[in-house]
């Protein structure tokens, strides 16, 4: 016996209430001296004992009622032997349609095997990373997909299905039973009680397979001549062989190389210089000689070629030097990928087509204009300085600036970086700002912003907040080499580079991901819906789904495009998970162990296959209702006696 929700047993504490009211607070008979008990009889006491028994019975009923309700909430169950399979069992035919099933004629064999198992009341399902039921009529049209198979997910789905139908299952699994599909722990393969598993293997041995395992290429470039593309070719259970690799750009061959791949090993090939048009280029690295599994012979990736990004630097009168430091660092880091236009306060600034803006120690620009720019998809780096202390608020965010903090006034002569989000590129890739001394910082109310870093005196130094479609990063210390020595430290250049990449969306321009990856494009408050197109150019999400911020699931291999506000778009290359490329089969012992109920492994995983959890909550609730009726009966009788 067990409980589905044992924490509800804490409700047993309620049992103290009837005990308190019945035993501790109950009416106690007073004593009184009386002349003689000559006219009283022992039968009087008997009736009182009877009433007392009634009273105790009433308390017992109430205790039982409460206890049963608590137990019902805890959802008890018993382990019950159920016949696995058998003539009355529901037969489910599960067909593996993962990418590896595309090897040779595995899928055709699977369809053939499935058709033999068809009959009345037979359910058919396909599985890769999840289980989906289909109609028997769909079976002849089933093809291998590009998803990865997960036997652990299959076992979990079958357990859930068996609990929902509450009947024995006879599951026929038609699969190549890849070793890479197995979960980390064998216990995750545990099936529900009463489920009999029959394995139909469509792969009789481990097949050799070649694949383009990965490709490393820049996401965005100014000039294709400097592009370096590096691809890794892997062989699984293969002999050493020479393989020819072809690089394609927008469907056109852009390079071809032959490399020697060791037996069951890896080798890298590099292509230098590409002729890329402006905008996104759909690129692929593929093997010239295809093998039995074609879907992993080609690796897709995208590169965006763009002109230098325009950065608008707005600064106050006292922070002219900050523009100089920033521009120099940005040019040094990105080799001309950005051009910086500086505007001092009081001059009209042109924010059109700016990749991002920097607002440095000034409150002299129209805050409404800056805010609109961000809400429409622009991004900004706000550097706080003395001018913001005078203005009393943080530009764009509008939160209060509390005070200016001087390290020299405290026990320390300067502050350094304290706690920080080490996953944030502008911190991690800038060496955690090592050696940077902060002498003056601006203590601003973070509001809804995420605090990315604090100084050693706990002052928030770096914050980030999504506003509309855009992002605002706040650095709470001026970049004039007075408030701190950040601009002259080595970490300043990578900091500026990473901030620029983040704010311009550089790092998001193109992305490589595996099939079945879910991507979240939900922006900050007030962000608009995004538009996602699948590899066929059709909408992947409805407007309602995208408005609600539903994740985009890359359900198949190909180029996916996401269009967002402010003319920003993103190209995502979805490739087959390369774990599908390893066609090594599940060990026979494991397969036998999985489909044989009551074995050691199964017992270690929990209960034997023949036992299922039989919920008792309904019975317990029934008993509670009965106890309630009895309680009402005994209670009314007791009440009648009391009033008499």
């Amino acid at each position, binding site marked *: 016996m067990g409980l589905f929700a044992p924490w509800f047993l804490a409700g047993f504490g309620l049992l103290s209430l009837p005990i308190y009211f019945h035993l501790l607070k109950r009416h106690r008979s007073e004593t009184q001296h009386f002349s003689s*008990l000559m006219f009283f009889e022992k039968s009087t006491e008997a009736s009182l004992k009877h009433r007392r028994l009634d009273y105790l019975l009433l308390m017992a009923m109430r205790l039982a009622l409460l206890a049963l309700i608590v137990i019902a909430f805890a959802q008890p169950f018993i382990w019950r032997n159920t016949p696995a399979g058998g003539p009355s069992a529901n037969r489910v035919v599960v067909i593996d349609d993962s990418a590896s099933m595309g090897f040779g004629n595995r899928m055709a064999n699977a369809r053939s095997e499935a058709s033999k198992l068809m009959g009345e009341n037979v359910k058919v399902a396909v599985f890769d990373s999840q289980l989906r039921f289909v109609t028997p009529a769909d079976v002849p049209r089933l093809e291998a997909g590009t998803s990865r198979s997960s036997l652990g997910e299959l076992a979990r789905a079958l357990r859930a299905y068996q609990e929902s139908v509450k009947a024995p299952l006879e599951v026929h699994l038609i699969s190549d039973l890849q070793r890479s599909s197995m979960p980390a722990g064998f216990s995750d393969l545990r099936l529900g009680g009463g489920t009999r598993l029959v394995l139909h293997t469509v792969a009789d041995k481990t097949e050799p397979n070649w694949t383009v395992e990965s490709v490393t290429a820049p996401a965005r470039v100014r000039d294709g001549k400097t592009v370096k593309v590096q691809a890794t070719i892997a062989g699984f259970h293969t002999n050493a062989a020479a393989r020819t690799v072809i690089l394609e750009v927008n469907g056109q061959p852009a390079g071809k190389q032959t490399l020697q791949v060791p037996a069951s090993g890896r080798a890298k090939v590099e292509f230098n210089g590409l002729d890329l048009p402006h905008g996104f280029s759909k690129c692929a690295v593929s093997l010239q000689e295809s093998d039995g599994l074609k879907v992993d012979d080609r690796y897709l990736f995208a590169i965006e070629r763009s002109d230098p990004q325009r950065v608008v630097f707005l600064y106050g009168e006292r922070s002219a030097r900050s523009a100089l430091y920033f521009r120099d660092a940005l040019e040094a880091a990105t080799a001309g990928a950005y051009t910086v236009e500086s505007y001092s306060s009081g001059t009209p600034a042109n924010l059109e087509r700016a990749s991002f803006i920097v607002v440095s120690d000034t409150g002299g620009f129209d805050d409404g204009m800056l805010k609109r720019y961000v809400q429409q998809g622009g991004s900004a780096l706000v550097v706080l300085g003395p001018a913001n202390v005078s203005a009393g608020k943080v530009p764009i965010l509008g939160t209060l600036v509390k005070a200016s903090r001087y390290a020299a006034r405290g026990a320390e002569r300067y502050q350094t970086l304290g706690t920080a989000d080490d996953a944030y590129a502008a911190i991690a890739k800038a060496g955690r700002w090592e050696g940077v001394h902060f002498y003056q910082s601006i203590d601003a109310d973070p509001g809804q912003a995420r605090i990315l870093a604090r100084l050693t005196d706990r002052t928030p130094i770096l914050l980030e907040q999504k506003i509309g479609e855009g992002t605002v990063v706040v650095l709470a210390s001026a970049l004039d080499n007075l408030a701190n020595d950040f601009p002259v430290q080595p970490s300043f250049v990578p900091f500026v580079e990473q901030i620029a990449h983040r704010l311009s969306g550089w790092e998001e321009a193109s992305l490589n991901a595996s099939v079945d990856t879910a991507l979240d494009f939900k922006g900050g408050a007030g962000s608009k819906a995004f538009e996602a197109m699948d590899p066929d150019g059709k909408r992947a999400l409805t407007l309602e789904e995208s408005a609600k911020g539903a994740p985009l699931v890359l359900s198949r291999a190909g180029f996916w495009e996401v269009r967002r506000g402010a003319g920003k778009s993103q190209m995502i290359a979805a490739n087959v998970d390369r774990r599908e490329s390893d066609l090594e089969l599940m060990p026979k012992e494991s397969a036998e162990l999985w489909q044989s109920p009551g074995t050691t492994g199964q017992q270690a995983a929990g209960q034997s296959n023949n036992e299922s959890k039989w919920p008792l909550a309904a019975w317990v609730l029934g008993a509670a209702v009965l106890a309630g009726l009895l309680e009402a009966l005994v209670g009314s009788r007791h009440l009648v006696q009391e009033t008499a």
Partner: protein
Amino acid sequence: MIQRFLDPKVLAGIANLELTAKTVVDGFVAGLHRSPDFGFSQEFAEYRMYVPGDDLRYVDWNAYARTDRLYLKRYRGETNTRVTVLLDRSASMGFQAQGVKKIDYARFLGASLAYLAHQQRDAVGLIGFDDEIRDYVEPSSRHGQWVKVLHGLNRSEPGSRTDFAKPFLHFQQFLQRRGMVLVISDFYAPASDVVKTVAPLRQRGNDVVLLHVLDPEEIKPTLKASKILIDMETGEEMEVSPEYVKDVYLKKMAAHLQEMDSLSRGAGLSYFLAMTDQPLDEALRRYLVIRAGRF
């Protein structure tokens, strides 16, 4: 106004038993609109026609001379009598639910009756008993006898349990001469046993008056919730429910009182139920009626 002083609750506030008795009796007598020297012994009562068999000594020859008819002259009493108060001082007499304790009420009653008798120059005595004879004041009409009786009554505190049989056997030796025996008790014993025990006194020529003293709570208990009752004599405990009192006890008590009354009458005993919330004059009146009927 004086009647107010006959209320047991008022009398309970008077610490002096002598004063209490005098208050009761004088108030009672004043209420009768008769002389305070009202007496019985030689008082003329009535004439009645002579019938054959009557004692010729009581014929009023003067009346015969005048009227030529034979009349008998009747007197209420020819001699003084002996009045013995038998006071039950068992533990149950200590019960008090409202008003006064039964033993106090019994003492007022005993003192008042003794005073009344003493005023008539009757010999007055006292026997206090529970399961033994605890006090004995020999009946006498001498001066100061009433004070002795009062002292005896003052000493009467509730003792142990009641047992009529044992002390009444001893009464025989103290009650050699005929007279009035006033038994003041709550009679917590079967009526047949009480009457069977007391009846020999009557057979010896005594006028026996059973004064049954009970608290109203004993006759009709007001039990609102179940209570554990403790027997004042035996210490026995019993939990009693209101419904039992309502359904059974009242009937049993009523039957007991009825039985006491009927069996007493059947045995020639006078029986009177005195409740502690009732004025004492009713008890005194009953006494006088019985006393008058004795001669």
